[in-house]
């Protein structure tokens, strides 16, 4: 793509007869086209909702590029999205303006060395950058004003920063270096996913015995790796048989995770499936069935799609990442999550750029990024031909569409009915799993949080719990309760986010505004607790960063009453609105069996009648000490899914109130476990100043550490594989609820009417950055 002329649009405004009128008109009528590219979109929504009301400035969010004249690029532009960005920009009429918000739109921010990243300024001419990760709504509006001033002729130059001398380590005369904790990569790490562990778990021992009897000669070994975790080693040939046996008689009915681990020096891949059951007694047990295959260019492996449809997308993802061909899966041609030109990036021989820029002189700050060479966003030719033959209508929705989110839906319609939908995700795939392999354990906390900034605490909590599990740390009681408060706040925030999106999808902007006002209160509570609106990184291994004052706790408790009050208004205008009920009732029904088969998780699974909530099944933090109930429903339609979550939020408010009261009663004390702090014991009340010293060289014991938590939108699974020597994880696998729910959206929408797709999509609370990671 050629370099755009940067000031062309301003010149267009300044030419011609009616210059003052043109400038004035354009200045007050900057309509941003609705092009949400990444997670900063959450803050964009806040900027245009009732808290900040961007419409004051005359900027009206317009869904269509032809009628807009302003793009606000929200954060990361991935390789796939780069094409979309250029296409959207080309479609807009002159004069047009581009603002880039968020740190990753400039130099990549926290994802600076990601393999899937491009820089928007190399794709379209940018008028103004607004830094921040994520930006605040005020910052965004300031950017709009800056463009207005630019149109008027007052061009703001970049702020000049003060230069600071970095302290040198070696003293005078020596080369100046920044003190960092060096990463330690073990040269030939020993990777084992079935490290046995002595635990007090009678049921597990019985289970292992019965499994051994049942599987006969199909397995190589069965080990208990932790409480509620069993690993079964088998051969590639026997894997399908083992799984069939498990699902047939043991009652294992769903897959939680498909994972591949590359071990280049032993010339093997470890392929593992984590399976579990929704039957009463086996609920907390996760069985890892794994096997080893030879490390070739394109190894072949039997697919489990015939058994469980839910593994389909995860297998395709692994095909993208490692180039393993799952025999029997239909999606093995072409890329699913990644851009077509990307090579198997999660193999260990695919190296990312290291942080050399700090250590060496003359190395440019930003890594070189190759831009995509074409604007093609391919659609399968066969599909088009077939649709042509059967008189179907193929519509491409997204990624720039008011109702698409950050992914493309290829819809096949027959009249007003949906015959098939093919998802095309990966537009916000920021390659977190690869980045995590190149960062210290502690550095990954803010990284994973960015998977879902509308539900940040739960994202943190899952990862941190996996580390704590590995190290065997017990968290102080006070910290446990505060973590519970935070997780629930975050869950409520995520629900309101999704309600807002659902109400927009059904065309109800008032509902969107109301819930965003409530979300503003939640963010206020989060700000007062942690200092950050969306990305607090507050939960750390062993506890929380610092204690919370009683004032803030009181305020949080007051907020719960205020939220309850406003919820009633929201109920009146949206939830009990007859049109909303008509739109969602009986739409996108998934029965209990279907819901399990398609692998959907969380509140959406509960809406189909499965009583499975990890907070009850495998209680963590303070959930088992508080009085609350799991909400389940049996309708399984869009309304059921939404109302189920709504009831759950009422329970969350209950939990919140109890937890706040409990914390207030509790004596003040340590909030970080002293075991993990070691010699920095005095930091147990506030980690400030000691974080890097205490956590920089964290090394996890050898093995695979899996944590399962209930995030805002469902089961969140982190699986960390450590070699026991490196201070970076060997591999981190995140299975986010949205990624699992994608299949559910597709299946629930089939056979419904076109407009129903948005009612289904909205009811699933799909948050693409979380799904794509």
């Amino acid at each position, binding site marked *: 793509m050629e370099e755009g002329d940067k000031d062309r649009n301003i010149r267009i405004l300044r030419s011609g007869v009616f210059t003052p009128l043109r400038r004035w008109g354009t200045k007050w009528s900057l309509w941003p086209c609705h092009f949400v590219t990444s997670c900063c979109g959450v803050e964009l929504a806040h900027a245009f909702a009732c808290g900040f009301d961007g419409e004051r400035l*005359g900027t009206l969010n317009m869904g269509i590029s032809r009628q807009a004249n302003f793009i606000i690029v929200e954060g990361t532009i991935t390789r796939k999205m780069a094409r979309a960005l250029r296409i959207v920009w080309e479609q807009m009429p002159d004069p047009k303006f581009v603002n880039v918000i968020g740190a990753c739109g400039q130099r990549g921010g926290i994802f600076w060395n990601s393999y899937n990243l491009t820089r928007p300024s190399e794709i379209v001419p940018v008028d103004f950058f607004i830094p921040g990760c994520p930006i605040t709504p005020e910052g965004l509006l300031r950017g709009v004003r800056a463009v207005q001033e630019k149109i008027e002729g007052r061009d703001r130059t970049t702020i000049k920063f003060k230069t600071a001398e970095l302290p040198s380590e070696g003293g005078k005369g020596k080369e100046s270096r920044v003190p960092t904790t060096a990463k330690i990569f073990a040269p030939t790490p020993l990777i084992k996913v079935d490290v046995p562990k002595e635990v007090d778990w009678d049921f597990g021992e019985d289970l292992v015995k019965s499994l051994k009897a049942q599987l006969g000669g199909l397995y190589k070994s069965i080990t208990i790796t932790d409480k509620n975790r069993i690993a079964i080693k088998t051969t590639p040939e026997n894997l399908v048989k083992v799984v069939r046996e498990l699902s047939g008689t043991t009652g294992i009915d769903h897959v939680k995770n498909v994972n591949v681990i590359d071990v280049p020096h032993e010339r093997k891949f470890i392929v593992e499936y984590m399976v579990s059951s929704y039957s009463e007694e086996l609920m907390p047990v996760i069985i890892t069935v794994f096997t080893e295959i030879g490390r070739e260019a394109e190894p072949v492996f039997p697919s489990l799609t015939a058994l469980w449809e839910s593994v389909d997308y995860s297998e395709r993802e692994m095909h993208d990442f490692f180039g393993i061909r799952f025999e029997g899966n239909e999606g093995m041609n072409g890329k699913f999550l990644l851009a077509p030109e990307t090579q198997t990036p999660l193999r260990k021989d695919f190296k990312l750029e290291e942080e050399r820029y700090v250590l060496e002189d003359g190395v440019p700050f930003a890594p070189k990024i190759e831009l995509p060479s074409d604007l093609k966003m391919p659609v399968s030719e066969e599909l088009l031909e077939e649709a042509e033959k059967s008189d179907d209508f193929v519509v491409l929705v997204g990624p720039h569409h008011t109702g698409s989110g950050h992914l493309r839906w290829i819809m096949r319609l027959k009249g007003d009915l949906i015959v098939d939908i093919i998802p095309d995700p990966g537009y916000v795939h920021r390659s977190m799993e690869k980045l995590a392999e190149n960062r210290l354990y502690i550095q990954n906390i803010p990284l994973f949080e960015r998977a879902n900034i509308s539900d940040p605490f739960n994202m943190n909590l899952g990862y941190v719990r996996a580390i704590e599990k590995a190290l065997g740390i017990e968290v102080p009681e006070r910290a446990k309760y505060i973590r519970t408060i935070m997780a629930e706040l975050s869950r409520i925030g995520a629900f309101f986010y999704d309600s807002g999106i659902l109400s927009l999808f059904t065309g109800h902007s008032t509902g969107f505004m109301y819930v965003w006002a409530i979300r503003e209160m939640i963010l206020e509570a989060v700000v007062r607790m942690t200092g950050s609106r969306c990305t607090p990184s507050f939960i750390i291994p062993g506890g929380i960063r610092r204690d919370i004052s009683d004032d803030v706790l009181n305020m949080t408790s007051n907020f719960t009453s205020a939220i309850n009050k406003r919820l009633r208004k929201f109920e009146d205008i949206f939830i009990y609105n007859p*049109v909303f009920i008509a739109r969602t009732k009986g739409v996108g029904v998934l029965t209990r069996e279907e819901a399990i088969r398609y692998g959907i998780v969380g509140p959406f699974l509960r809406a189909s009648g499965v009583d499975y909530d990890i907070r009850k099944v495998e209680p963590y933090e303070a959930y088992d000490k508080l009085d609350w109930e799991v909400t389940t429903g049996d309708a399984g339609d869009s309304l059921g899914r939404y109302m189920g979550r709504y009831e759950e939020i009422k329970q969350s408010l209950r939990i919140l109130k109890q937890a706040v009261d409990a914390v207030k009663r509790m004596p003040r004390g340590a909030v970080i476990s002293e075991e993990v702090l070691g010699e920095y014991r005095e930091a147990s009340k506030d980690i400030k100043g000691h974080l890097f010293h205490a956590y920089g060289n964290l090394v996890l014991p050898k093995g695979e550490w899996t944590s399962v938590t209930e995030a805002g939108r469902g089961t969140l699974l982190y699986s960390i594989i450590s070699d026991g020597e490196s201070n970076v994880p060997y591999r981190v696998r995140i299975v986010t609820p949205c990624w699992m729910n994608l299949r559910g959206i597709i299946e629930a929408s089939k056979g419904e009417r076109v407009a129903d797709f948005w009612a289904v999509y909205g009811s699933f609370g799909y948050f693409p950055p979380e799904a794509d990671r």
Partner: protein
Amino acid sequence: MIDINTVITGLGIAGNQVSIPIIQQMLDLLPEIPMIKLIISFILWKPFFAALICPGFTTLGILLLFFPWIERKLCGRIQWRVGPHEIVWWLGGIIQLLADSLRFLFQEVIVHKDAHRPYFLQFPFLTFIPALLPLMFIPAGNIVAIETPYAIQIILAVVCLFPLFILGLGWASNSRFAFIGTVREAFMYFAYEVPFIIAVLAMIVLYGTSDPVGIATKQTIWGIILNPIAALTFFIAAAMATSRMPFEIPEAEQELAAGPHVEYSGIAFGLIYVLCYEKAYVLAGLMTMLFLGGGSGPAIAGLGDLSGVIWFLLKVVIVLTTLFVLRAIYPRYRLDQGLSIGWSAMLSLSLIALALSIVLVLGGVI
């Protein structure tokens, strides 16, 4: 030297003047400059006044400039925010639409490769015919451009042409979203048209005339009180016809990215953007005429014929505001739900309204 009064009488505009007592003296005092007198007589000639000032172009223009602003402001208030504000902040951003329209006027108009170029560019302008023509027949008080006993039939005929032009817009765009939107528009058209016409018919039966001025004089009791069912049907049909929530089905920004308008940019879109408001204005005028007593109301001293104009405008604004506030209250129905409302609920309502009218007429109420 030709006597100017003779010309005025000769043209036939002398006897049909808008009388405004408060400025009559001023007009009389005007010097005997021939052209001024002629121009003023022309402007105050009722048909010309109706076409040019009210309910014609001037009023329409002012309403178009301010109504989207009022809508945005009102919805903003309902949604706990302020709406357009910064542009002339001391007036609450009242000229927001001026800025928007200037921007559209000076922006590039993109005609994409796949579009049918002549139609694509013609239709936004052609659509003004059915949008503006009905204004000639709608009376503001006793001022009407073309007086005919078949006014309502003509208005109906022209208003019903409107969707055809929208179909043209969508078809010329040659885009998939525009196609779906166009088909939806056509479906909705069939759904609301029949109840709409029957509701109007009910009122014609009730009043026994379709002459607008005659209808106004017949409404000693307003039509909305005589036949509220017809009024309700008419209002819902108007919401459907102007693609208002909850029937914003053809445009459906979240589903179809504004349907038929998806490919339009610059001034072409600007025209389409105001079209919907024009149609709403025409339907609000019709509603005022049929159900709210037209320009009737207590005479304002000194204003003469203008009194009726002011009452008419006030009622129109109230109807329009009600229509626009719907956007902030309701989500959007699905296409099949919209159709079933049109073909079942509204059709039966309109038939009941017709029956009610017949009963009222036979019972001698009116």
